């Protein structure tokens, strides 16, 4: 089974694009835009709108039909495979399987000053109607806030005997988050501490596949809340304990 994008007829391949070219806005710019889109394997290219951004830049809105098709059955997804539990199920799970509270320590690291995301996961109030970890029975949640150095985070994690480290990264420009996240894993490994913690990352542009790639246990993006994170963590902790 191969599929294409859908406009109004199955597999008609219709897509919309928009972009700017460093060219004046005129017929030549439009033709260049068209040729570029054709290079992407798109035919029936319609430049439906062209407008000058200044004398040497122009913006195009384009509709076309993509040649490309894809067999969705060949696409595999790096997804978190543990079940998602509710808050009370998680609390019960902890009560059943652990004889002590689980400690989560979290921060927004590097120069990142965004705390709303990590607060959404960790603080009492939570976000969008989902309570944060602080409110979970059996969980101790320590939120170090923002702009926390990797070294400080690790020190605090050791000091508090944390089970789970949570890192939030929101600024991703020029891949500043990749650099920062990579150096935390390197730090953990250099200190021989990688196996002491479950390490989870999150943020608007983070997903599970990226987290695995960088050597983390899991990654959570938009529309993920405390219960998602806690479900994953308690399952993995139990697994570690049982192993």
């Amino acid at each position: 089974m191969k599929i294409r994008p859908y406009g109004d007829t199955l597999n008609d391949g219709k897509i919309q694009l928009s972009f700017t070219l460093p060219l004046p806005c005129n017929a030549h710019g439009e033709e260049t835009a068209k040729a570029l889109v054709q290079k992407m394997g798109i035919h029936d290219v319609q430049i439906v709108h062209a407008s000058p951004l200044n004398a040497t830049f122009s913006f195009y809105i384009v509709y076309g039909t993509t040649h490309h098709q894809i067999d969705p059955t060949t696409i595999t997804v790096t997804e978190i495979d543990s079940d998602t539990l509710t808050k009370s199920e998680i609390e019960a799970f902890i009560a059943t399987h652990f004889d002590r509270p689980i400690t989560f320590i979290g921060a927004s690291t590097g120069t990142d000053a965004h705390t709303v995301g990590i607060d959404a996961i960790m603080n009492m109030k939570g976000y969008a109607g989902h309570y944060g970890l602080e409110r979970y029975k059996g969980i101790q949640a320590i939120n170090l806030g923002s702009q926390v150095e990797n070294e400080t985070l690790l020190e605090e994690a050791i000091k508090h005997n944390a089970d789970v480290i949570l890192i939030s990264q929101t600024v991703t420009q020029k891949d500043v988050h990749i650099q920062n996240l990579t150096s935390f894993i390197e730090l953990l490994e250099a200190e021989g501490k990688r196996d002491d913690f479950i390490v989870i990352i999150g943020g608007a542009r983070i997903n599970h596949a990226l987290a695995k790639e960088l050597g983390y246990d899991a990654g959570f993006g938009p529309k993920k809340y405390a219960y998602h994170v806690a479900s994953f963590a308690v399952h993995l902790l139990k697994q570690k304990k049982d192993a």
Partner: protein
Amino acid sequence: MKLNLNQTQINRCRARAKTIADTIQTFIDQSTTVSVERTILRFLSIDGVNPLDVPYVNVITDHIIAEADLSLGVAHYLSLAIEDTGLTPQEIAQAIDQKQLSLKPYQTKTHPNHSLLYPTIEEQLNRVNKQRRIREKTLAENPKKSTPELYVIVATGNIYEDIEQALSAAHKGADIIAVIRTTGQSLLDFVPYGPTTEGFGGTMATQENFKLMRQALDDFTTSHQRYIKLVNYASGLCMPEIAAIGALERLDMMLNDSLYGIIFRDINMQRTFIDQYFSRLISAYAGITINTGEDNYLTTSDAYEHAHTVLASQFINEQFAKNALMEERFMGLGHAYEIDPNLENSFLYELAQAELSKAIFPNAPLKYMPPTKHMTGDIFKGLIQNALFNIVAVTSHQSIHLLGMLTEAIHTPFMSDRALAIDNATYIAKAFKDFSHEISYRPDGIIMNRANDVLHQAETLLKTIQEEGLFTTLEKGRFAGISRKLNAGKGLDGVFKKAPSYENPVMTRLIERLKEGNHED
């Protein structure tokens, strides 16, 4: 009242519009058309097409025109033929098609026994009535919205894709689905048959397509407890026939406007006025909301300068509907948000116009059309034009809220275009929920003055139309600047002056039932 309008002036406009419509009614009452006659045949349960795909109802009228005289009416021929042959209407049609029967001999017979036709007609009207009651019951069971009903179109050309698109729209929150017809269908002097999958810019209006879509939407209603209304287009050469099949298949709304057909489709005015009267009687009885097409004037003429033509036309359309015994709650009079966005204070003028329509027709479920003419390939700007339109729709409490598509200038809507339109309208309806109760307009401000100006201009125009007559008005091109001649245009050859003995038993029963308020089976 929000706009400080002069109620006496409004009453004067209504009175003038009534005279205008009544004059046309006198003409209508003396005439019939091929399409009216075919509609009678449909109410006699004649269905299907011959091997050459000609509908049997056309087979009969073509035959009568060729061999006899249609001005006597099909009821004349059919009642005599039934009496004579003992065949059912459908069998008669097939026999004619196979040249086994000719109606010519009945031309000169008198005193046809119409009572032979009534049982089938009653049965068909009961079927229509049953559909009406299903609609009313389902609507009553489902919660009513306080914000405008969201209306979107589907137009893939393929009824099965249309269904897919319609269901997606319903999932996203649409309340009303209109299946656009293939381009040019309104000029066909027959109604195509069966399920269809090939259309340009729309899908054939056929009874089977109506049925398929109705079923799909009813299934949605069952699973989601939300009644989805279905719309199609009656205007055109087959106006009353499509109204009839819509009534039988429980469509909920019908685009139904002669003026649209005359002006934008070059359909002969005599033909379509006659057709419109019968089609509106049918819709009035079926509880189908009609939609009129005044909005289209502004796609051709400048919307700021010609706003009053819309209002004048609404007044006239209201009287046409009243003459067809239609209740106000079924009169979806059209208007539109079409002022050039480059005009300063465009939002204020649009708001004035929308409030004006609502104030003048408070009980009519106004059909409010989105920006189309000034939509461009700039889909981002288009989305904002639609947002402003949505604000006016909510603020002025429009009823039927046709959603604008960000790709209006590009193609008939993709599934995603429609979804974005619904998201847009839903967001605005929520954000502006009580806005209209919060604000009042400055006396003598731009908005009030504009509303009063438009009303004033409409009155002047109605006066002119009353004086010269609507036929002349159309010849002079006062609507949309397009001139049409009384004896030109498509379908004129399908107009017949009724013979003295002419009878339309369907119309008779419709009027009786409507007057008795008799909706019992």
